């Protein structure tokens, strides 16, 4: 059986799904395109790694601290968004990515180029959990994240964020404090991204600066846009499909990334709202199916 393989692919896909849900709040709701989300990811992973290897905490005791720290650092890193916007913000986030990578690579406190080794698997009741256990933990965090995102999407906060994203001036004239909501988005986004970083660090067992490169950030944004910007289902779907897609192409090993890159470009152009976003291909198919079912029910 290839159980472990599928399990570990699923674990990583779930971790990325959590991350993309976080990115969705920032980029999907407030339309602040982030091409540096690997930096937020790195902050979660590195904070956890440091707390575990240097402070000797366990997975569970370090987790709340890491999440809190990710949130705070996320807000600090979001501060430039109050001054700059649009394409300047995109490039600023790219910059944050490179700066965070540079700092982790050049300062020995963060392990430097040698990375941080020895991030052990979490334990429950003194017993180390295996791959399956870890997958279940990841999955439950994913479900938790989905729940929070769902609940959040029903609140006024999300409307305020979307208004901020659509037209900042108009939102301000409606009495929305756009700065607060931008920061709010950064805080929520970096929290989820930090959580994803924690889970990732534990499942790999080590962190190296180059794991959080700009290419990763591009992949993250691609996942979100591929699935459907601004929707929870799209974020989860995008993360799973784009993570698993290259695995499907294993049989054309050498041409795998070529096909991947080309497809990414084509699908984004053909389906700018994402495959599962509003008005996307699958979205319409599902809507049609649901409608058909409703119709047949009415007839019967």
């Amino acid at each position: 059986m290839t159980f472990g393989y599928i399990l570990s692919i699923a674990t990583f896909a779930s971790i990325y799904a959590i991350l993309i849900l976080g990115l969705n709040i920032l980029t999907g709701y407030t339309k602040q395109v982030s091409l540096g989300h690997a930096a937020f990811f790195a902050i979660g992973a590195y904070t956890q790694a440091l707390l575990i290897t240097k402070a000797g905490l366990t997975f569970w005791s370090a987790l709340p601290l890491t999440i809190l720290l990710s949130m705070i650092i996320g807000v600090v890193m979001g501060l430039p968004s109050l001054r700059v916007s649009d394409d300047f913000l995109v490039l600023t986030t790219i910059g944050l990515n490179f700066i965070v990578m540079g700092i982790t690579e050049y300062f020995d406190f963060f392990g430097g180029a040698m990375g941080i080794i020895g991030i052990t698997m979490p334990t429950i009741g003194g017993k180390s959990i295996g791959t399956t256990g870890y997958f279940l933990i990841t999955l439950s965090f994913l479900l938790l994240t989905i729940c929070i995102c769902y609940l959040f999407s029903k609140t006024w906060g999300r409307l305020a964020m979307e208004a901020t994203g659509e037209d900042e001036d108009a939102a301000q004239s409606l009495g929305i404090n756009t700065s607060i909501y931008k920061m709010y988005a950064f805080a929520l986004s970096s929290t989820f991204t930090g959580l994803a970083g924690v889970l990732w660090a534990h499942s790999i067992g080590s962190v190296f600066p180059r794991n959080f490169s700009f290419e990763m950030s591009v992949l993250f944004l691609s996942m979100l846009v591929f699935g459907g910007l601004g929707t929870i289902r799209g974020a989860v779907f995008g993360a799973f499909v784009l993570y698993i897609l290259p695995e499907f192409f294993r049989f054309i090993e050498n041409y795998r990334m070529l096909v991947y890159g080309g497809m990414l470009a084509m699908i984004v152009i053909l389906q700018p709202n994402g495959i599962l976003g509003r008005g996307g291909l699958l979205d319409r198919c599902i809507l049609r199916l649901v409608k058909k079912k409703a119709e047949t029910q009415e007839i019967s």
Partner: protein
Amino acid sequence: MRRFLCIVMVLMFVLCGLLSVDAMAQETVKIGFITPLTGFAAADGYSSLESAKLAVDYVNEHGGINGKKLELISYDDGCQPDQASALTRKLIENDKVAVVISGSYSSPSRAAAVICQQAKVPFTSTYAVHPSIVEAGEYCHRIGMAAPIQGRVGGYFAARELGAKRIALLIMNNDFGVSLAEAFKETALKLGAEIVYEKKYPLGETEFRSYLNAIKAADPDLLYAPGYYNEAANIVSQAREVGLRCWLMGDEGYDSPKFIELAKTAANGVFITTDLNRDSDRPMTRYFLEKYKERTNIDADMVGASGFDAVMLVSHILNKVGTKADDIIRYWDTIENFEDCATGPIITFQERSAIRPMDIQIVLNNQFRYFYRYYEPEIIYLNPPSGGK
């Protein structure tokens, strides 16, 4: 039209999924291989994979593994640790490989090592130097040279043989460059040299003139610049350009014909520490160098040699003790004077890292030439055996 295209694409995904179900394999002994074929490390991945295939062909021509064919199953990890860890699981569970070999950089190798240790499957890395790879556990070995040894050899050669008193360091900032530089520095300082300049540069850097001008001002006897050949070629040619007149010394990362091709005549006179002796007349080395060139149309490099050796060593062990993991590991640690490899003979394994005599090579007339060889146990052993064995 748009919708049609999309549907076709979605169908393709599904089809691909169905197609990737493995075909039934015949009775073979399988070894797994992960290596970066895509991304920035693709060149090293290609070298090590082609060399590994070469070794597999050699083994199968010479009787296979106890009559069974040796089969190499390789996956591309893109130099990403998460892919490496998933693929290692795939190799172990799906392909049921006897041994996993990593022809990849340190970060993915470490991730794979942890998985193998958990699953109790023998693992070996080919050229990754990070100390933590073998620290993952007793199932993990290393074929390439451990960084502390290589850095130490460099230090001895610079300070003792060349007599350099003032040394400048230009270090590639990844685990490879940093761990080499640390060992080098320690040795050189112990032997009475002085470090007059030290700077780290990131992987992929191409412009070194501003550093080299500063180094020139510091007036060293020798510049040690651990790194890979792509960056090294730039360092060496730019060093000659800014008029830096001192010994230049590198490491096994330079050991590729591409280094000489890129650095052109500036490469002449550069010393490197390596274990692939191109002037050697050992039959295995000659076989590897010739066949590799025949196969890929490119001259072989050190990375390839490590991949070749890994497969050779693993198949030797499999031939001796079969495919049971514990037998393999027990035998592995007792190996002495293994000769069937392209690099210098592997004397033994210490702390699960291969120990072999170390060569200093020099570039002369646009070729790597043998220059000096270290046999002393206190230099080439990870922990020099007390009493001198």
